């Protein structure tokens, strides 16, 4: 199958298992959203798919297993942005995005013209060309998230693994960033996997959702099937209303009058 496929994934940190027998699948050019309450293992799943954690089970991209790949080869297939990236101080936007060319360079090599050209294209597409020479530290939150995305795109990967790409962004900037990712997906056919806190945004942008609870998949499928009021209320221990607008789910918090019912 083309696209990304993870079968029977178990992983964790130093003897503390987090994921238990997780299956996830997204066709090439698709968008898989990973949702679930805090601590469910969303970020762990993304790190595992990126090859950053030892794991059991198999991950394949376009039918090829990536588990045996060397780091540089894997970095040409998978681009990963963590939830809270730590952009190094002192680098300009160009220097930072240029780091994304590392998978194509020998360890002690240096970038050539073609690498700079790739960076120029990425900066232009992400409207960062005007701030190419600015130090990373001077960017706003939204601009910095775009710079991180630019660095991942400079890897020219087939799969984008983005952990909470809208962290710290207001709703407008969050929408703009997700629209951008969606455009890249449609134009380039790149496969996208994101974790998303905001269930409404997850339902609007992803075409498949995986709902993780305590490290295991509790539901997966189209957003309309996965996001039911009962399921969200139970696993997030939240009072919500799940509405439908323009065919997309909207998950809205509801506050009951009087004292809140005890969770559970």
């Amino acid at each position, binding site marked *: 199958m083309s696209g990304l496929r993870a079968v029977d994934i178990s992983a964790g940190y130093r003897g503390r298992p987090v994921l238990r027998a997780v299956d996830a699948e997204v066709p090439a050019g698709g968008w898989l959203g990973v949702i679930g309450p805090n601590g469910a293992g969303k970020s762990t799943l993304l790190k595992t798919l990126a090859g950053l954690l030892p794991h059991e089970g198999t991950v394949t991209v376009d039918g090829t297993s990536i588990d045996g790949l060397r*780091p540089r080869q894997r970095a040409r297939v998978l681009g990963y942005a*963590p939830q809270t990236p730590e952009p190094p*101080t*002192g*680098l300009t936007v160009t220097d930072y995005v240029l780091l994304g060319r590392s998978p194509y360079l020998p360890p002690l090599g240096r970038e050539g013209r073609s690498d700079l*050209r*790739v960076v120029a294209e990425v900066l232009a597409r992400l409207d960062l060309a005007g701030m190419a020479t600015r130090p990373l530290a001077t960017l706003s939150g939204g601009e910095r998230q775009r710079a991180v995305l630019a660095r991942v795109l400079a890897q*020219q990967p087939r799969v984008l693994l983005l952990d909470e790409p809208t962290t710290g962004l207001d709703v407008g900037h969050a929408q703009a960033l997700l629209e951008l990712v969606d455009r890249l997906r449609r134009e380039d056919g790149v496969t996208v996997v994101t974790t998303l806190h905001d269930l409404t945004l997850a339902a609007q942008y992803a075409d498949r959702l995986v709902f993780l609870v305590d490290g295991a998949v509790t539901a997966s499928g189209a957003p309309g099937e996965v996001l039911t009021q009962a399921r969200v209320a139970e696993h997030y221990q939240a009072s919500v209303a799940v509405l439908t607008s323009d065919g997309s789910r909207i998950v809205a918090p509801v506050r009951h009058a009087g004292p809140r019912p005890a969770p559970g």
Partner: protein
Amino acid sequence: MPLTVRSGRDSPAGPAPAGAPRATRLRVRHLALALALLLAVTLLSVLLGAADLGWQRVVGELVAQVTGGTSPLSEREAAILWQLRVPRVVLACLVGAALAVSGAAFQGVFRNPLADPYLLGAAAGAGLAATIVVAAAPGTLDWVIGPLQLAAFCGALSGVVLSWVLGRTAGHGTGTLILAGVAVSAFLTAGQTFVQQLNTDSLRQIYSWVLGGLTTTGWREVLLVLPYVVAASSVLCLCARLLDVLGVGDEEATALGVRPGRVRLAVLLAASLATAAAVSAAGLIGFVGIVVPHLVRLLVAGSYRVVVPLSLVGGAIFLAAADMIARTAMSPAQLPIGVVTAFAGAPFFVLVLRTRGRA
């Protein structure tokens, strides 16, 4: 997956398009300026000294050496110049370059702006190990590859690794590593004092060496230090891009196809070697590794492709100038050079600390 070009501005086969981003690289003019400054400082340092040879006559000697003319200096004066003063200036340059470049390397590897061979326990580790060799096997100090160099290298590496491990167990903050380094340094320096007390006959000699000294210098020390500094600096210059990659953190560096553990090991070995060479020639000289890389960052750029090579030249400038001040400020008495670098470096350290606190 090819990236589609959105606008027609880029020509796929031609040179980089107009308005293409420029990567931060070491520019020829920055390097030329730094080398010119280095030349000026070393020349000035050669002209000035405790023995008053007269700067015009030193210039006359230099010109005579180049043109083959007759020198205004007597044979004894020429010997002072060529056997004492010039090698001392050269040694100051080498030691300064080694300390500054290893400071930059430690900062990159630990992602910590305050890292420095002096504060991380590297210098103290090398100092303790070297003191033990000086006390136990004084006959071996002339060997190019001998117990002194080996011990200093192992001492430097152990000091850094100990600070790092202790810092990791206590937390991940910028200050934690430095606090651990200060504790390790204090412990190792105490060990060094203890070894000295056991060998009071050589105490005086070791004491001046601990404060940082370039006093007992001829070409011998230069030749003992040079190969190590050249080897370590070459490795560090080659690893400069990888230090930029490490700046994004180990996880992201791994996702970019780089193996952070290997890079860190190579850089730590090279930086410890440079520190050990500097310490075994000139004792403990602090703050060079903090001041110089940060000045480069402030004045030129923050990428390690620029910081590493310019720290080499800048360290040489800084320590040659500090040595000149140490020799001439209270002439004919000499200040320990570590005093001069601390006077300049400690306020600078506070400055860096304050800017980091605000960021």
